[in-house]
């Protein structure tokens, strides 16, 4: 297993952590304003990329 797989695992957890914080900041409705929507979009894109890398690394 590569260092890259380990890094990606942490990065994905950290991206999820940023999403978690956003859920806290917008509780209880979780209604996002435009900035927050942009932030969520960016975080989810990062997460998809990180999970993609993890698949490549861990299933090869």
């Amino acid at each position: 297993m590569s260092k890259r797989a380990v890094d990606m695992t942490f990065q994905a957890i950290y991206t999820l952590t940023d999403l978690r914080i956003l859920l806290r900041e917008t509780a209880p409705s979780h209604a996002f304003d435009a900035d927050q929507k942009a932030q969520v979009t960016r975080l989810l894109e990062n997460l998809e990329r990180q999970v993609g890398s993890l698949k490549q690394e861990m299933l090869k």
Partner: protein
Amino acid sequence: MRCGNGIEARQVDELFINIDPIQAGGRLTADAMKAVVAYGDGYSVCDNCRKPNRLDYITKPPIAEFHRDVAKWLNMDAVRTVPGARRGFQAVAQTYVNKGDPVLLTSLSHYTEFLAVEEAGGIAREIPANEQKLVTPDAAAEKIEAVRKEFGRAPVLAFIDHVDYSYGNMHDVAGIAKVAHQYDIPVAYNGAYTVGILPVDGKKLGVDFVIGSGHKSMAAPAPSGILAATAEREKEVFRTTGITGDVTNRTFGIKEPEMMGCTLMGATLVGMMASFPHVKERTTRFGRELENHRIVTEALLAIEGTTCLSEYPRKHTMTRIDTRGSFDKVAETHKKRGYYLQSALEEKGITGVIPGATKVWKFNTYGTTRKQAEHVARSFLEIARENGLAVRS
């Protein structure tokens, strides 16, 4: 959802606005959560511990630098991390208090200060708060004189809470410290509700020790806290070990007895460290927190029969409110009795008020966004109206 062995995943702060009086300032920052994930293993910060083998000397992660930074930030000379403010009280009490010594507390002191004094064999003497629930320098002087009369000597130590746990009132620590020092009494500042919440300057306050709570006010996991000392007191409370084993002749280097050697060795410490830059920054915008608090407090006070038991206008975001003349009247006939308020709040996505409390209770808005504060304020008013209480516009 469970996270293991019957432990429910806690989602309180994701699903609700949490106004619990003791939880508000301890919510982790994103960086602290990330650090906790990386350093959750037991002795995780010890990977690079080198001689002289003491926690506050470790440079990777930058624990030594953190200690220096916290001391500078509080305008004190030395800092150690401790497992909660109470362990800071304990270290100070063990250093200065012997059996039968009088120790100055206040009628609003936290119980852990009493326990620290008790464990050291001291005798508690409280400065009474006045009618406004404030502890004043005059009352301190009066009490010290009373203690001198009773014991034939002044108290050996004073614990003074800057903001008390009961009313969230702000007491004149600087004035009290000035009085105490006239009698050569060291002053331990209890900053459990201030360090990490609002600016604290130890030298300006004129105190010998500043004690803070990581999990109450520094966005850190429990149990964590800090004990800061002046250069003069550092040598006393952070004295190093002198013991030797009679069979092995072992000695223990520069370990500090009051710290029991090393203190926070993993997630607690890195959590506090990771939050620190954010905590430093947030203390500079305490005014914004007070403004959010004002929105909620004013809404509550618009409900007829509600009074604020804390000093007003508020100087802190934790407040004691009296709703015996409003929400408690509803509880007398409501089918859920006193539980209706908490239940109605939870329906509106708000938690942290003690279940069943409708008489006198506390809340803390620290860390809420403006939107969240407005939602809490609106919700209290809606619940009042829904239950037939009069609301002043």
